């Protein structure tokens, strides 16, 4: 029987209790992520996890304050949410354009207890292999935390797709072999390139939170059986693939059902839904 899993990619944009405490969160979610869903009590997030057989979720902020002026949840707000529920694993976000970016990250991890870094090159307007971001990578490596990079397609009007190309991560993967790097959204549409990176660099992981047309079942089947055969993920990348939903752009239940329906072995599903995420997060302890 499978252990309750971890969703490695969620945005806590709809949590009503936090929006009540911090009204600016309502506007940020609507304006930057264009999310139009109704705000929900924290209980709904928990029920979403329950329904998908998951125990915990990584919750992500987005700091593009120095590049595009957008901030969707601060690191302090993520830490506040994590104090409200033990089911959340908080990540930090730091805009690499800030001169004191490494210090901000160190503080988020050491003072706020956050356990990973989320970077969004298309929104933060930098190429991942730009020297600008290297001090952040060095800090993340020294802190032992993983970095989750937004990769591939971006819906946000202020973003630019070119910054999300996964091949811009190759130098980073090569220069920081001890740094665990997760490419979000399978880096779609550049799934083949993302898979090539992961095949070559064992410190490169992929998350499953990809949905850009059709529905979760049909989209993931296209990306993970037609763009790249499922056997590649099962045989070669089974320890470098983590479940992510991208909630609330997609309900967790729908994405979990889609991944479960792809045809992976039960052993591989255990890795995707739990063990690989634990491995990534273990480094942060």
């Amino acid at each position, binding site marked *: 029987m499978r252990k309750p899993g971890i969703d490695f990619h969620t945005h806590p944009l709809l949590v009503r209790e936090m929006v009540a405490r911090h009204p600016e969160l309502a506007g940020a979610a609507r304006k930057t992520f*264009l*999310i*139009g*869903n*109704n705000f929900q*009590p924290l*209980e709904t997030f928990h029920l979403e996890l329950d329904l998908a057989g998951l125990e915990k979720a990584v919750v992500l902020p987005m700091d593009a304050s120095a590049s595009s002026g957008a901030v969707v949840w601060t690191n302090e707000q993520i830490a506040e949410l994590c104090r409200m529920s033990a089911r959340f694993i908080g990540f930090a976000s730091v805009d690499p354009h800030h001169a004191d970016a490494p210090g901000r990250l160190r503080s988020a991890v050491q003072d706020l207890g956050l356990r990973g870094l989320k970077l969004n090159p298309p929104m933060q307007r930098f190429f991942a292999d730009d020297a600008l971001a290297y001090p952040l990578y060095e800090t993340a490596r020294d802190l032992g935390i993983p970095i989750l990079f937004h990769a591939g397609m971006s819906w946000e009007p202020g973003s630019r797709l070119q910054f999300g190309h996964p091949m811009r991560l190759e130098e980073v993967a090569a220069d920081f072999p001890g740094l665990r790097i997760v490419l979000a959204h399978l880096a779609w549409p550049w799934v083949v390139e993302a898979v090539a990176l992961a095949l070559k660099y064992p410190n490169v992981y992929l998350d499953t939170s990809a949905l850009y047309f059709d*529905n979760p079942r049909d989209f993931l089947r296209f990306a993970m059986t037609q763009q790249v055969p499922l056997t590649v993920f099962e045989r070669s990348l089974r320890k470098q693939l983590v479940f992510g939903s991208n909630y609330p752009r997609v*309900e967790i239940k729908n994405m979990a059902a889609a991944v479960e329906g792809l045809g992976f072995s039960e052993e591989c599903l255990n890795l995707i839904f739990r063990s690989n995420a634990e491995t990534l997060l273990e480094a942060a302890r």
Partner: protein
Amino acid sequence: MIVKLTRVEVQSRQDLEMIDITEHIERAVAESGVRDGLAWAMTAHTSAGLLVTEGIECLERDVLAHLERLAPKQPPEGSYGYWHNRYLDFDGRLGFNAGDHLKSILGGVNCLFPVENGKLVRGSRQKAYFVEYDGPLARTVFIQVLGNE
């Protein structure tokens, strides 16, 4: 004449679920001050519904199963797809719950009861249900009571 609108929040806990809201409507009637008139309830959502049926679990299961057969969440493979499966820029996400919207249309989104002597009038086996087609979510039900004091 009294016209009073009440908003009730219902927390669904499952993907598909029937939640008895008869007491909510009865309470709204009792608190309205209306002696003779009508009580009307409507869901504020398009992937949820309201309907009246007998209040027993087996029938709840049959209602949900039948609506799922008529309007499946996943379109049958190889036959047709839902047009709703596309990016909705106003919503920041894809639409892939056409089946749930269709269930809402098939099952209806409101129900109406007479009010007599300050009480809701309904058949002995009738219950009013909020029906969740795309949960879990916190949902809103409007209950409006109108009539004479």
